[in-house]
């Protein structure tokens, strides 16, 4: 029997100068399903959804919506045609209210010119109630959490009578609990007959939520099949095009004496009486929900934020860093949460980013030696397997995974002994993730210490030796990885 397809992608090809982002991609999407679209960074997912959303135009190929060939020249046309995008970075007007945002570009009118505010608020409230959400339609969008802003974007799409909702990595910015309620909403939309195209890096979500899945690789369509017919390993192999081996290739490091000790650390409402010890060569995990104070803890130890009280010992010596630079000089480092903004100077080259924290290594008599800098940056980026056209390429042109590898290269070049990694694999595709895990192995084998802050529980369980759980600025407990389970950590998290 012929299935009921709402959308057919037929032979879409899209070229950018020097690269073919999509190469003859064809697949179909069934009406009323949640359809996952997966692939590594650079596989062409974003390009494809931008074509669906009317932002890009294909060089060749067609889109068939409800059996009818369609071509969208702007996001507005796509929306009128029934396709709405909920973007990675949500595009809402922050100072406007929830109700106003839901009707943006689609105002309800009394007569020809007068705006029907009352009617809009009522309709907005209906949609909110339908979804069972606790959102004040008169609140400004900027006053909402990121999770709720995302719901507003979804409601905007519902209000536009969208038949297809494209969600680009909605989970990247959500906590586990927020994710649950987002899943509930998405399933509810499916019940209402809306088709959802769901893009995510997290394969677990695909299995929890989606009906079908399409895999893209290097701009080509690899396969489309029901989620029930495939295993996670098979999906990963389709995405990377090779056998992957273990997802968490954990190897125990060269564990030595205590290298970092924190005693009764306090800072305002962020950190309350935190004490712990980390040994050299360990991977020490810090788990907890967003806002538990994990990043704040790293910042306090590294001299970025002032502390109210408490003691920090590095290699048995009491330290008190007043600036981050002092901590760096003492062999500490931080791979920050926001790789794009904090980790790298985007407009600088791979080479210059690599040497930035420890320029002194390439300086002779006050002058930067080009040959030395080339040599070192080549050595480190090769070691980390950074894929870049050249050392002179600005990092903004690299994929997320490669950017993260440059950040790591930078701290290895600094020869940091104690390295804090704050959400090191967020938004990075599976292949690059495993490479980063291998780098962590390598670091601890060399006797370096890794302190990993992560919201992804499997990663914490898979890569750490010991795990500290935090909640609202307090240490809730410490677990050896041998005894730790997801449930035990969750129980301490809340």
């Amino acid at each position, binding site marked *: 029997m012929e299935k009921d397809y709402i959308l057919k992608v037929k032979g879409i090809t899209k070229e950018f*100068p*020097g*690269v*073919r982002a999509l190469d003859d991609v064809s697949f179909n999407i069934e009406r009323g399903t949640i359809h996952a679209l997966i692939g590594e960074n650079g596989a062409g997912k974003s390009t494809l959804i931008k074509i669906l959303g009317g932002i890009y135009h294909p060089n060749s190929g067609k889109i068939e919506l409800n059996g009818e060939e369609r071509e969208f020249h702007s996001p507005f046309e796509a929306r009128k045609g029934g396709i709405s995008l909920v973007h990675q970075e949500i595009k809402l007007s922050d100072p406007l209210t929830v109700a106003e945002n839901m009707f943006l570009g689609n105002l309800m009118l009394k007569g020809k010119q007068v705006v029907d505010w009352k009617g809009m608020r009522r309709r907005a409230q209906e949609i909110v109630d339908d979804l069972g959400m606790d959102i004040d339609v008169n609140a400004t969008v900027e006053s909402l959490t990121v999770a709720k802003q995302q719901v507003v974007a979804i409601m905007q799409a519902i209000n536009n009578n969208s038949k297809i909702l494209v969600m680009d990595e909605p989970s990247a910015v959500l906590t586990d609990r927020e994710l649950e309620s987002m899943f509930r909403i998405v399933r509810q939309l499916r019940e209402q007959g809306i088709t959802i195209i769901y893009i995510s890096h997290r394969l677990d979500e695909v299995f929890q939520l989606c009906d079908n899945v399409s895999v893209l690789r*290097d701009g080509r369509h690899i396969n489309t099949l029901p989620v029930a017919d495939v295993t996670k390993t098979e999906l990963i192999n389709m995405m990377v095009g090779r056998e992957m081996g273990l997802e968490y290739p954990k190897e125990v490091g060269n564990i030595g004496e205590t290298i970092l000790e924190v005693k009764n650390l306090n800072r305002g409402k962020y950190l309350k009486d935190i004490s712990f010890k980390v040994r050299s060569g360990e991977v020490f995990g810090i788990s907890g929900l967003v806002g538990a104070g994990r990043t704040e803890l790293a910042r306090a130890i590294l001299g970025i934020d002032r502390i109210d009280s408490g003691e920090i010992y590095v290699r048995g010596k009491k330290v008190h860093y007043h*600036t*981050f*630079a002092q*901590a*760096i000089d003492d062999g500490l480092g*931080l791979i*920050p949460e*926001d790789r794009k*903004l*904090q*980790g*790298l*100077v*985007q*407009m*600088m080259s791979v080479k*210059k980013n690599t040497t*930035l*924290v420890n*320029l*002194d290594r390439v*300086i002779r008599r*006050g*002058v*930067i030696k080009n040959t030395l800098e080339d040599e070192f940056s080549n050595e480190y980026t090769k070691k980390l397997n950074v*894929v870049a*056209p*050249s050392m*002179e*390429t600005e990092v903004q*042109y690299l994929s997320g995974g490669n950017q993260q590898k440059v950040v790591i290269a*930078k701290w290895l070049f600094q020869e940091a002994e104690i390295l804090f990694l704050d959400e090191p694999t967020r938004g990075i595709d599976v292949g690059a993730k495993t490479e980063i895990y291998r780098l962590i192995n390598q670091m601890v084998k060399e006797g370096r210490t890794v302190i990993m802050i992560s919201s992804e529980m499997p990663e914490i369980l898979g890569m750490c030796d010991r795990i500290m759980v935090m909640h609202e600025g307090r240490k809730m407990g410490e677990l050896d990885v041998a005894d730790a389970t997801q449930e035990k950590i969750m129980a301490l998290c809340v």
Partner: protein
Amino acid sequence: MSKQAVSLSDRKSYSATLSQVSKDYMSVIGIILLAIIFSIGSYVKNGQQYFMTVSNWKNILLQSSTVAVVALGQSIILLTGNFDLSLGRVVALTSSVGAILMKNVGMAPGLAILIMFAIGILMGSFNGFMTAYVGIPAFIATLGTQYISYGVAKLLTQATPIPNMPESIGWLGRGYALESTIGKIIPICVIIMLAVYIIAQFVTSKTKIGRNIYAVGGSSEAAFFSGINVKRYYFGTFVLAGILATFGGLILMSRLNSVAVTNGQNYEFDAVIGSIVGGISLAGGKGRVIGTMFGCIFLITLFNGFSQLGVDPFVQDVLKGVALVIAITLDVLRNKKRD
């Protein structure tokens, strides 16, 4: 795939080199074009060549030198992603103080010059402190300094020009190198201009301080998370600009052999035009400072040519505004990423 990646990198580096070359030498090409246009213009208008003469080019370089020295400070501030509106008026303030001390108080020029620099450093420190440590946008802080400097300069001089500077500082603006052997060919102030730009180009491209300036301008956050003391760089660049403004003002008062509150007027904007034409980005973190020197020469050549052709000075102001907008438009287009 690998084939694709290779061709991609080839093309990218080729176009990158091309755009880099055009950016670095845009102003030089501009100067050459202007020279050709104005030479022809001058000939057509006068039936004789007034533009393409040694003395006119000497004049252009003389005028360029003062604004270029001030513009260097502006360029370095632009590299960190800030902006200084006060530079032109700091020129007026420091030279007014200098003139009064030398002429009315009778202070030794050396001491008076030291005090001038102290005031330049003070104004720069104020700008830097407000911007880096108090957190006021540079635009506003330096606008305040602009008014303060101008106001104090007017108060001190009562808006009356002070003529005839001491002979001992005359060499700075009116002296020539090797005058006894080759005559009045190479002005000392042009050599000074070249010297400060060569030093600045070296420091910004070859030292840690320079690299960190680019990092701060490229992304202050990423610079911070690389252990760079971002605030200190903001502060330091404003102080340096104050010093260079004072220096430029000193050369100007020597060259004009007089001080008026209009000394240095609009230098801050001329400096911005010069910087951007020279390839410095208004958004920070990009461009080579040596380009600014050529950018300034370009600007002065433009107005010298207009004067030669007898364009009304008031119209010239209009054209300056147009030049500013064009320069900034070019910068914006240059930085726009191609989708």
